[in-house]
């Protein structure tokens, strides 16, 4: 494939103290495509995705070997500010985690911490983000109500809008539909397909059908190693590695 590579993992080993959680990961993430990461519980997929926006630094005793590149530059370099990386690489979490503030304040929060002060600009960006997250229609007359009153699916879309407001380049989804009902899940999947036109997307999921539905590339992780990666079609119809085949056909999960 000759698409631009947005992010790249090179020889990544990751340790929690003495325990090695990731072994020699080499992976390319293509710009404006959806890359899915699948694998059984404990395979390291959440650990890996959290490296991409340096959230792993919050864990004590964690250490990393290898490089993670964003647009060709190592994000873990000394001179690179983690805070700036996190603005460029956003994250949506497994359980929706809106702040106990109003809907408007949730979305504008990212703008405030990134130094945007112009009230009109903030308002414009909040509305635009809510529209992009397909939430505007639902809440346009409730902007100043508490975000905690929204349903689970709406809260998750709010978290997406919150993420979009800071205009990231990459969006990481860590099992975003794990706590949602099928209808909300469907809406989020639709949203992701829309969003990939503008953003590079990485999604961790243990729902294989979801990966098959919405992703362009899929990576299969097992016990901290990247077993196989390729175009989604290929992975699901003709996997090259037996372990991939076993996982996909449900022989283990």
């Amino acid at each position, binding site marked *: 494939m000759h698409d631009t590579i947005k992010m790249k993992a090179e020889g990544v080993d990751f340790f929690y103290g003495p325990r090695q959680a990731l072994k020699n990961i080499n992976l390319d993430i293509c710009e404006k495509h959806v890359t899915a990461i699948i694998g059984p519980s404990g395979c390291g997929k959440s650990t890996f995705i959290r490296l991409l926006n340096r959230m792993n630094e*919050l864990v004590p005793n964690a250490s990393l070997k290898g490089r993670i590149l964003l647009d060709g530059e190592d994000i873990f370099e000394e001179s690179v500010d983690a805070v700036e990386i996190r*603005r460029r690489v956003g994250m949506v979490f497994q359980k929706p985690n809106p702040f*106990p503030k109003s809907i408007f304040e949730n979305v504008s*929060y990212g703008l405030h911490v990134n130094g945007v002060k112009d009230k009109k600009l903030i308002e414009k960006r909040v509305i635009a983000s809510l529209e992009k997250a397909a939430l505007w229609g639902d809440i346009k007359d409730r902007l100043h109500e508490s975000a905690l009153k929204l349903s689970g699916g709406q809260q998750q879309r709010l978290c997406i809008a919150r993420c979009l407001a800071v205009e990231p380049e990459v969006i990481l989804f860590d099992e975003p539909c794990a706590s949602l009902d099928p209808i909300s899940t469907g809406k989020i999947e639709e949203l992701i397909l829309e969003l990939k036109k503008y953003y590079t997307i990485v999604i961790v999921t243990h729902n294989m059908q979801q990966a098959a539905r919405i992703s362009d590339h899929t990576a299969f992780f097992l016990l901290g190693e990247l077993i196989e990666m390729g175009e989604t079609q290929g992975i699901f119809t003709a996997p090259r590695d037996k372990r991939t085949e076993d996982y996909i056909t449900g022989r283990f999960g």
Partner: protein
Amino acid sequence: MKTKDITQKIGFAALFTCMLVTLFFLGAIIFFIAARGIKVISWEFLTQIPRGGMTQGGVAPAIAGTLYITLGSIAVSLPLGLACAIYLCEYSPKGIFVNIIRMSINNLAGVPSVVFGLFGLAVFVKFFGFGVSILSGSLTLGILALPVVISATQEALTAVPHSLREASLALGATKWETIKKIVLPTALPGILTGIILSIGRVAGETAPILFTAATFYTRRYPDSVFSEVMALPYHIYALMTEGTHPEEQTAIAYGCALILLVLVLAVSGAAIFIRQKQRIQNA
């Protein structure tokens, strides 16, 4: 009935009695103070200065004095206590520093109040030269209240879900921004509870202010932070031990005790019930 059933019945009856006796005594204290104190309470009592050699008039300066030193102590314990709790919870360092600080807080909490009084005397009244004043008293009481504020603030901060901090950091906020804009506002009710609890504690303390702030004979409102003040708890003690007219002064003492009791119970009651509700919510 089997022996073990009889034993159980007796045992449980004994336990019930313990609870009853405890509540009875405590109820008795409140009852007696209320019954005898209420006779003295009047608008005049609450708003006038004492007259007639501390036998007539009101105790307003003592109420005011208590208020001033309580507020003063919050001015000391709140910033320090908040900073300490934030350090322990948010910057969450591992290892020896944390343990030293935790042990210091626990031990500070157990220091007898009269020792605080002597500390305040030697350091604030004498060494810094503040004299017997609101300032000395507030500083002394502020240190005494520190563990209370730290403890309540820690509880409030730990109750803020970690996912909110993660969401904030993932948007590109710094640690301090996350604390300032997300964690503290969310933890605010718990922090306020801590402040209210410390008010209840500080307002009733006598020994720390015996040598650092309180006086019996001033009869005036304080002019500045360097003035000595009357204070309710000290006034009760002084009336009973320095007073020259036991009959009237005992009555006044009951009145003061009632005011103090109402103040402390109301304040502590509010704080404890709010905290109870929060704990049930968070559980």
